[in-house]
Structures are given as structure tokens and as C-alpha cells.
């Protein structure tokens, strides 16, 4: 069965996600040794030499989508169709701003489960993430991170992504039903609601990705890129600084990735 990593790079007016995906591809190639494909739309470009396949996909956009995009620095609503778009039988889907510095995620390909979803995240300073990043609303479902998940082409994955698509298409309704903490579209919320439906509206966990996402909040910046990891600075870090050797990091501050593009190229290209 073929294995690979799928990224999405949909540029916005504020952010060059194509370039961020280039960085992600360099790191994945170096640490996971897996082929990387990327889904782009017609206004996003990537370095094709870094990718196994560049899949151009421009979904039809509703007026609601266009309204939501105004002023938003990401376009999560267009991240879907995972099963149809992936060229691999076994796929690890990662956000482009999830910077991989170890081989751990490759372990998921050895698992028996058709889906591994990520329920756990910690801050780069070791603290638990905020409650709003653990639950989709007060007294509600645990959040499932769309940042990193694995699936194998299977009836189970097919069912799950059909539910994801259903929730996505009726997001306004589900925002009310689940009393979501924000009107803004988040894949994490969609995944959590779809997983709830998948479990027949009962509390339950679809197979858990055992590797929590180490999350650097937007106030944290990359101070240094080294072959084995990152040094981060920012008010949220203990004593203003944190060191991440052999540890993957989800950088919510995307601009800092672009600011260090040449350093990433120097070490990983």
C-alpha cells in the first residue's frame, strides 16, 4: 500500500501558504522520509521539486465562503475532500505550519486503525493548552485537531469524511446546535462534531494519535533554526525562551516561518 503525506496550501492576501508548505515538505522529507503531495488552488504556488505531486484543486466557493475569507489569514473551509484528493492508500495529513523534527509520526502507518485523530496538544512551555483548545465549547465535546491526522482508504475513513463534509456544509446549524465558542469556521470543530456523529452521538474516542501536538502560540517567534530543532522566544515561553530539539512544533505564528525561510533551506534542502 502506498504511503505519503498530504499538505494543503491555499494562499490568502496576508499569507504565502505555498512557501510555508515548501518548508513543511523539506522537513518531512528529511525526518519522515515519506513522499509529500500538496493541494493548491490557482492562486497558490509551491516549489514543485519538493513534492511528489502538486494537486491543483479549486473548489466552488459560496458567498458565505467569500464573506468568511475577508480579513481571515487562513482558508480552512477549503481543506476537505481528503479521500478524493490523496494519491496514497495511507495518508498522513498535516497543516503546513506543523514543523516536523522527528520520525515519530511515521509510526501511525504501522497501526491497525483506519483513522488516527489527534485529541491532545500542549504548549511549547509544557503547560496544557487553553480550555478553548481542548473543548469545542463549554461543557461540550473534546476538540480534535485537524492539524495532524492519519487515515487509510477504508469504509471507516470514507464514513468519517462524509460526516465531515456534512458538518462543513451545514456549519451554521452545527454552530448553534453545539453552541460553538466562535462563529469562525474551524476544521477542529468540524472533526469533533463528525467524530461525535461517527460514535452514534455518544462520548467515544476514535483511535487516538499518541503524539500530542506541541503548539507555539502566535506570540512566539522562531529565534533560531538548527538541524535538530527550533529555539523559540516569546512571552508565553518559560523565561521567554524554549528549546525544541528533535521535537515537532505547530507554529501558529506563520509569518515567523517565512521570516526564516532561508535558514530552513540552508539546513534541510
Amino acid at each position, binding site marked *: 500500500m502506498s504511503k505519503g503525506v498530504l499538505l494543503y496550501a491555499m494562499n490568502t492576501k496576508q499569507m504565502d501558504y505555498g512557501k510555508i508548505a515548501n518548508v513543511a515538505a523539506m522537513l518531512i522529507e528529511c525526518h519522515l522520509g515519506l513522499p509529500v503531495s500538496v493541494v493548491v488552488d490557482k492562486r497558490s504556488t509551491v516549489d514543485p521539486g519538493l513534492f511528489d505531486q502538486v494537486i491543483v484543486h479549486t473548489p466552488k466557493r459560496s458567498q458565505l465562503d467569500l464573506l468568511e475569507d475577508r480579513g481571515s489569514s487562513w482558508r480552512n473551509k477549503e481543506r476537505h475532500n481528503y479521500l478524493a484528493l490523496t494519491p496514497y492508500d495511507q495518508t498522513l495529513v498535516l497543516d503546513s505550519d506543523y514543523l516536523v523534527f522527528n520520525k515519530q509520526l511515521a509510526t501511525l502507518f504501522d497501526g491497525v486503525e483506519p483513522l488516527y485523530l489527534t485529541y491532545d496538544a500542549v504548549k511549547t512551555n509544557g503547560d496544557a493548552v487553553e480550555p478553548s483548545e481542548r473543548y469545542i465549547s463549554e461543557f461540550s465535546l473534546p476538540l480534535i485537531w485537524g492539524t495532524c491526522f492519519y487515515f487509510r482508504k477504508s469504509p471507516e475513513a470514507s464514513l468519517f469524511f462524509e460526516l465531515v463534509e456534512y458538518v462543513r456544509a451545514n456549519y451554521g446549524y452545527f454552530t448553534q446546535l453545539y453552541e460553538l465558542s466562535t462563529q469562525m469556521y474551524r476544521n477542529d470543530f468540524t472533526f469533533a462534531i463528525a467524530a461525535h456523529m461517527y460514535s452514534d452521538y455518544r462520548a467515544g474516542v476514535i483511535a487516538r494519535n499518541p503524539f500530542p501536538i506541541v503548539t507555539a502560540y502566535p506570540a512566539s517567534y522562531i529565534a533560531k533554526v538548527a538541524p535538530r530543532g527550533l529555539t523559540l522566544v516569546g512571552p508565553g515561553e518559560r523565561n521567554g525562551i524554549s528549546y525544541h530539539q*528533535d521535537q515537532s512544533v505547530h507554529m501558529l505564528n506563520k509569518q515567523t516561518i517565512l521570516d526564516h525561510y532561508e535558514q530552513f533551506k540552508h539546513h534541510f534542502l
Partner: protein
Amino acid sequence: MEQSMELPSIEKTLEQASLLATMNERRRSAAMVFDQSLIFGYQGGLFKADAMTCGFAKMLTEHEAYVVMIDLNKNPIMIQDPDAFLTELMAVYTEAAMRYYAEVDQINKTRSKEGLTNV
């Protein structure tokens, strides 16, 4: 005769505190990497090569020709060759622990902030 004890300057104390904070931060990060490095895949199951799993597997190999182990997602996995499984468990644990040891040893020996921040 009274002996006078010279107190270190506050600057030196704060510098030392800052160094210790940096060491602790590096150790915390290394511990997290170690914890994640223990997870591995075997015959469809995801297992953690921690002390408890290693000990349990060792005990089972002494009594059974084959065993069922429960993985991290509660999947029962049939282990046809417990000895091979134990060997794999020990290999994963040993590699992760040796790396962790080397990392912490280097942190402890590096008594300068410049050295510690050189990730």
C-alpha cells in the same frame, strides 16, 4: 574569632538562577521527546516501550508461547513470537533511554548559557 562569610553578589545569583532555569527547560523538553520516542508500531498495534510494558512482556514470555497484548488504543494484538516482541520493546526503550541519557548528560555538563542555548 569571628569568621566573615562573603555573600555572592545578586547579579551572580540571578545569573545562576537563569542558568538553572535554562537547564530545567532543556531537561523538560528532552523528557517529552523521550516519552514520545518510546512509542512504536508492532503487528498493527501501537505500543509504548515503558518500564511497565517491558516488565509485563518479560513476564509473559516466561509463561506463554504466544500472548495477546493490548495496544494504546485498546486493540488486542496477537503476538505470535513474544521473544521477538520483547526484543523489539527493549531495543526501542534502550535507544530512547540512551539518547535521553546522552542529552541530559550534555545539559548537565554544559555549565554556560551559551552552550545550553545552542540547540
